[in-house]
């Protein structure tokens, strides 16, 4: 019970975000299909220096720390030499583009859309970012997985202990399992 109460925000988020993804067409009709376009937030001349032959990852970490946006991100170097950093912020994802030729830094942010925010939340996982908060989130996702499996087992056990509910419970269980098996075979 206490575990369920603690994890209820996670379960609520996964339920609501799944509803949003299941009805993506409705959001596409409202906001338009395809990825959300970025809006320019600010543009500046970046005063920092990088070591010669610095890797894109080192450059991105330095830039993000300099502009107060350090956190989980992906980075690529474009053919024209520009460094493109995608900062995976849950609330406001940003794209930072650094042009080494004129040391210009363009910072763009993604406008808020409820379904895009929920999808980002739903898909956030993994231990690879190297940031402690992301690792903690990934651990919490693992905890939700273990808890869900545990609730299945403990729920079955609690139901079986209540002899008065066995008949109707078995009907519900078999009905659900039968429908699931049907989908499994035919879909």
């Amino acid at each position, binding site marked *: *019970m*206490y575990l*369920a*109460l*603690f*994890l*209820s*925000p*996670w*379960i*609520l*988020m*996964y*339920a*609501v975000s*799944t*509803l949003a*993804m*299941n*009805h993506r*067409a409705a959001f596409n009709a409202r906001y338009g*299909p*395809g990825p959300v376009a970025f809006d320019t937030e600010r543009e500046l001349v970046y005063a920092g220096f990088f070591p010669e032959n610095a890797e894109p990852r080192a450059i991105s970490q330095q830039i993000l720390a300099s502009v107060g946006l350090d*956190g989980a991100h992906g980075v690529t170097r474009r053919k024209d030499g520009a460094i493109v950093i995608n900062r*995976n*912020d*849950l*609330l406001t994802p940003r794209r930072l583009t650094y042009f080494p030729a004129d040391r210009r830094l363009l910072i763009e942010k993604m406008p808020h859309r409820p379904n895009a925010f929920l999808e980002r*939340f739903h898909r*956030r*996982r*993994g231990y*690879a970012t190297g940031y402690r*908060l992301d690792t*903690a*989130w*990934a651990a*919490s*996702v693992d905890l*939700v*997985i273990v808890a*869900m*499996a545990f*609730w*299945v087992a403990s*729920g*079955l056990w609690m*139901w079986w202990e*209540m002899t008065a*509910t066995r008949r*109707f*419970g078995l009907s*519900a*269980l078999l009905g*659900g*399992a039968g*429908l*699931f098996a049907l*989908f499994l075979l035919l*879909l």
Partner: protein
Amino acid sequence: MTFAYFNRRLHLYLGLALLPWFFMYAISSVPFAHNQFFEQRDAAKGLPLWTLRSEHTVDLPVPEDPAALRRFGAALLERAGIEGTSFGAYRQGPGQVNVYAYSFWSSTQLKYVVEQKKLTVEDRRFRWDHFLTGMHARGGFEQDGVLQTSWSIVVDVVCAGMIVWIASGLYMWWALRGHRKWGGLAILGGVASFVVFTMRL
């Protein structure tokens, strides 16, 4: 029948009926959350993921309108002799259209390279982690067919069921006076952690 009794029974029977989905979403989250582990494990086998089924010469104009791309994908599937399947059609750059046809158990990709007028059909090797993630990600109302739509309706029911479990669980917890303090702390701890993640991630 009191509301408390109805609430307890709703929590129980809804849970039992939707148990296969709940369990499926739990175990299929493992390959999503630990994707690298499963990829490395499969790469160690040294087996190709896709095998060529057939190649066709096709000369069809690719529609500019993204809304018409699905119909174009259906036409490519027909040329490849694949019928009655769930699929998605995507532009892979200006000169290529990819179509993914899938069921829970199998997956086929079609690559149409416009310049070469060539349609390649490839089948994906079965992998348990892909089977699970495919089931997890299945949803939406874009596909034709009663079964496909029924699955998506059940996905909605499962989501609604989760929200009902939370509400009915909170009601049941509140009725247990002896558990209010520790339960309240658990809720506060969960909500506070969740808010920190939301603001800082």
